[in-house]
């Protein structure tokens, strides 16, 4: 069992803050991707296509 000494709260807070910030970044990116693909799907369903004629969802 590792001992963190008298400043354990500072060490634990640092690692917890890093975990929370990284989790927020990942969550934001995943939600943003879901959001954009959903909007593209809706546009695709309403018959709006790209100038190239390819589906809006192409390679997404």
């Amino acid at each position: 069992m590792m001992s963190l000494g008298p400043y354990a709260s500072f060490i634990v807070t640092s690692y917890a803050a890093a975990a929370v910030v990284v989790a927020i970044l990942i969550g934001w990116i995943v939600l943003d991707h879901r959001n954009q693909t959903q909007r593209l799907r809706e546009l695709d369903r309403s018959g709006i296509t790209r100038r190239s004629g390819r589906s809006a969802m192409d390679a997404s």
Partner: protein
Amino acid sequence: MSLIDLANPTRFLALTARVLPWLAAATIILLAIGLYQSAYAPDDYQQGATVKIMFIHVPNAWLSMFVWGVMSIASLGTLVWRHPLADVAAKAAAPIGAAFTFLALLTGSLWGRPMWGTYWEWDARLTSVLILFLMYLGLMALWRAVDDPSRAARAAAVLTLVGAINLPIIKFSVDWWNTLHQPASVMRMGGSALDKSFLIPLLVMAIAFTLLFVTLHLAAMRNEILRRRVRSLQMMQASRVAFSSEAGAGSRGQNASKEVGAAG
């Protein structure tokens, strides 16, 4: 596939869809190894166990500058070569860079309280990193304030390149001024001053965080490409609606004039 092929957003999306799962897996493995090594690193003879904060603080501090460097290269791509993915790369990197800079400031502050006796000191290193953080926030605000992505890209590129002046100031602040922050101990003339038991976990964590940045950056770039695709399709949809309503109004006008003619 040559580098120029990546200029095509559709090819970029296809390639990154294949690469991202591998990058994410490598990041998770390296982070796990780095965290394990950090947990079992010995206490420092002066800092005690608080040396463990360094394994988080230093990679984030390095990345705060590295991300701005990436954005500066992307800004050159926007202004000089007008590369179609350059401003996408710059815009996608800004929030990630801001998060790393925030973590560098926060963990540095949490280390400073037990070691220096204060959370904050207005010395050259801390102040120049705080300015970097504010510049990230300013860039993000600029991107949101301008509606047209290509106009926003040019303004943001100029601001990014001007802001790059801060990078050598941050790096050499500990040499140029008398600061509370200690001078460089890893990347310095004559090699690292750290013992292997600290240097190895630190380098593993630095590589893991760099991989984390690459993974998140590529994913955020994909989102930005999709956002622009949504925007252009919505504009196309709006122009179609405007055209059809104009055509409708035109035909109604023609019918009305025919009715007036018939009445006369």
